[in-house]
């Protein structure tokens, strides 16, 4: 969160909502809309700190930032009240937008939309509300108390934290750090991989680089497909399902969930699968199971390759 002291110290242009009006000639609107010119030759640093409301940050064009605030019910949007609590401060290519503490906008259902240049770095914090950040270079850091966070089409690293909320990632070029207290985590197409951790919820990963996925408690399950690198996954009582080519080593574990590994017929790997009180099944016609131990299998498939280590206490292991 941006400190008030920092804002006071900066020689900035401070704009209050009351100074704005209307989105276009001939229109009657209580929606706030304001643009700011920024240098296209430098990156933009955007810091946002909101108490309540949905926040959307997305690429639109270079050289300009556009900030819009809208209420689901415009007749209830009290610009003057908002003016006392929202501050927008610009210093060159640094823009800060924040709500003063103690002035939350409950019941207004505000949506803040900020269009930014591609080369933008974002630090965003929302106490209660959904965040959507898309189409920028990054890096991106975002945190929320209660609310979902969606991050997509980011070139650099992303760090996201929610106390309660679902986290969704799509097409991120840099490494992702994702933590949520309660909620699901889904991620598609992240070549540098993700470190995903939820206290309680599901995790779904598709086409990711080296990754870890952790469900700390409860019945949350993990699904992974199209893995590109190492993969470390653990659940509590939830199931774990991986369908991919083992390009690198995998370590899969669950306390009581069933772990299912789907491999293409041509996949080469070393499978080391064990369960304390369940069963291990190798459901492949092309693989002859070695040994009699129903609770442990350790053998090469198609001549061997990357290591797939699977452990569960009371669940089953199924390799297909």
């Amino acid at each position, binding site marked *: 969160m941006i400190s008030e002291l920092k804002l006071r110290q900066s020689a900035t242009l401070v704009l209050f909502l009351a100074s704005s009006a209307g989105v276009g000639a001939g229109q009657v609107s209580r929606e706030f809309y304001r643009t700011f010119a920024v240098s296209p*030759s430098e990156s933009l640093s955007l810091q946002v700190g909101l108490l309540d409301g949905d926040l959307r940050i997305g690429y639109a064009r270079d050289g300009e930032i556009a900030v819009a605030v809208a209420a689901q019910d415009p007749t209830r949007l009290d610009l003057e009240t908002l003016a006392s609590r929202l501050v927008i401060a610009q210093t060159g290519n640094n823009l800060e937008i924040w709500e003063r503490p103690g002035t939350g906008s409950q019941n207004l259902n505000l949506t803040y939309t900020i269009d930014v*240049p591609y080369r933008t770095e974002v630090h965003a914090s929302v106490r209660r509300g959904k965040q959507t950040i898309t189409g920028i270079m990054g890096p991106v850091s975002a945190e929320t108390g209660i609310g979902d966070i969606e991050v997509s089409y980011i070139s650099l690293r992303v760090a996201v934290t929610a106390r309660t909320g679902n986290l969704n990632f799509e097409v991120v070029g840099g490494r992702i750090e994702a933590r949520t207290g309660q909620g699901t985590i889904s991620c598609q197409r992240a070549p540098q991989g993700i470190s995903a951790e939820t206290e309680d919820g599901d995790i779904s990963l598709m086409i990711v680089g080296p990754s870890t996925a952790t469900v700390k408690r409860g019945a949350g399950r993990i699904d992974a497909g199209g893995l590109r690198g190492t993969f470390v996954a653990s659940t509590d009582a939830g199931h774990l399902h991986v369908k991919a080519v083992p390009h690198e080593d995998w370590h899969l574990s669950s306390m009581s969930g069933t772990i299912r590994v789907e491999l293409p017929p041509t996949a080469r790997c070393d499978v080391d699968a064990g369960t304390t009180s369940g069963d291990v099944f190798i459901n492949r016609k092309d693989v002859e199971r070695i040994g009699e131990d129903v609770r442990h299998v350790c053998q090469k498939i198609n001549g061997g390759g990357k290591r797939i280590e699977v452990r569960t206490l009371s669940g089953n292991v199924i390799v297909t």
Partner: protein
Amino acid sequence: MGRLQKDIAVTAMLILLSGWSLAQRDPGVRGGIQNTGGGLQQQGIPIPHPPLISPHPVTGATVNHNERASFLEGILRAGQLEATCDTCNDVTDGSPVPGELDPQFPQIRTNSNGTGARHNADQCFVCHAQPQLGGSGGFIVPNPADPVPQHAENPQFRLVPHRFDRQNIVPSFEKQYGPIREVRFKYKPDGTRDGGVHQLWTVRGSTNDPTIPNCALTQPDFEAELRAGNLAFRIPLQMTGLGLIESIQDREILAQHDATAALRELLGIGGHPNRSGNDGTITRFGWKAQNKSITMFAGEAYNVEMGITNELFPTATEEDPDCNGPNKPLPNDVVRTDRDDHDNKAFDNPLHILPDWMQFQVMMRFTDGPAPDPNPSKSAQHGRTIFADIGCSLCHTPQMQTAPVMLSPVLQDRPVNLFSDLMVHHMGARLADDIIQGQAGPDEFRTTPLWGVGQRIFFFHDGRTADLLKAIRDHFSPATAKYPASEANAVVHRFNKMSPEEKQAILDFLRSL
């Protein structure tokens, strides 16, 4: 030297200098070529991304979430570097490509098997990077990751022909700091019309693809064709604002044309639409307005320029099995409907997402038109008036309106400042390329939309000049035995009669677009 002689010399010098000061000249790429496209890249600054279409000027409507996501996905796909097969790129599928256009830009290959045996390029943005990605042809840095800083240059000079050590001979018409050119052959060896694109490069010698070791394709003998006068050049057009142009109804195009009929007749300007042979509606994209839609353009360019077959253009332009690899499906960029396909994409790429060529058209649809200079000079503002007064705007129609109802509200019923009538006109022998496309004859060209001309480097279909003044003057062409006179002759004559200040004003105006 005597006093008189000195005076004469000084006077002559002053006259000469005053003449220079009065002489009009093209102010060049607005903002400077160093601050656009590859000029930025050679300073370590990524080439800017194409702008998202601006909110509707009246209703304030914007793209919805899905449209924005598709726009971004389209940028991503257009930035991907194509190899010749899924497993022979030099980076892991889904990884950033080091040293490419934007080293920070995640280039993720999806479901395409890649570059064709013959191609002009292996990445959309190689040819569309001026002044930003999705723009017209410009310069790019061959390898931004090289420790020795490199100047931006024509990517057809070193980068594309020799990527992955391919053994291509660079034709003499591809200059290091010249326009990106592709070629069409005017006639076949038997004397009948050809008119088709003949790709510059082959994949022969690719060191990254072990599946085509016996590829022995050779390039056409471009030098011989050049000497024979059988080549017609084309340079890349900008992709920005095409969704807006596509949203203009035929009735609007015809109404605008009819509105200027009397004035055009006075100046000998005709013009007619090129029309689709399929449904008879006006075609409007490409140098001769030969393409019906941006979807058509996307699918066609993917196959013709990059050799990547798709649902719209499913047949390879070069079918030599030695150069296409044993596992290359045809077409290779498609809507995936399979669940567990034979080559294990279900395990490596489980996402059934739209093919590249479809994403390209979405990106183009929601890319904004080129933005003019927000603070044009007084000269430029004056030039806008003169531009209309002398008749330039009779063809370069400043504005049209999109259809009243479009599927996407952001596109509907809004002005498009394209500066084109989208008609084709006879331009005479000087510009004629002797290529027929649809109803556009050998010397006919679409009125090139002038929005964005302020930041283009090269002009005309063949990129013959980087000087806007020469470009204006080359609109003039007398009648010959083979071709009629240029329809622009009377307007160019008016231009030539103007004062140097007025000519300068027009040049300043054009560079403000």
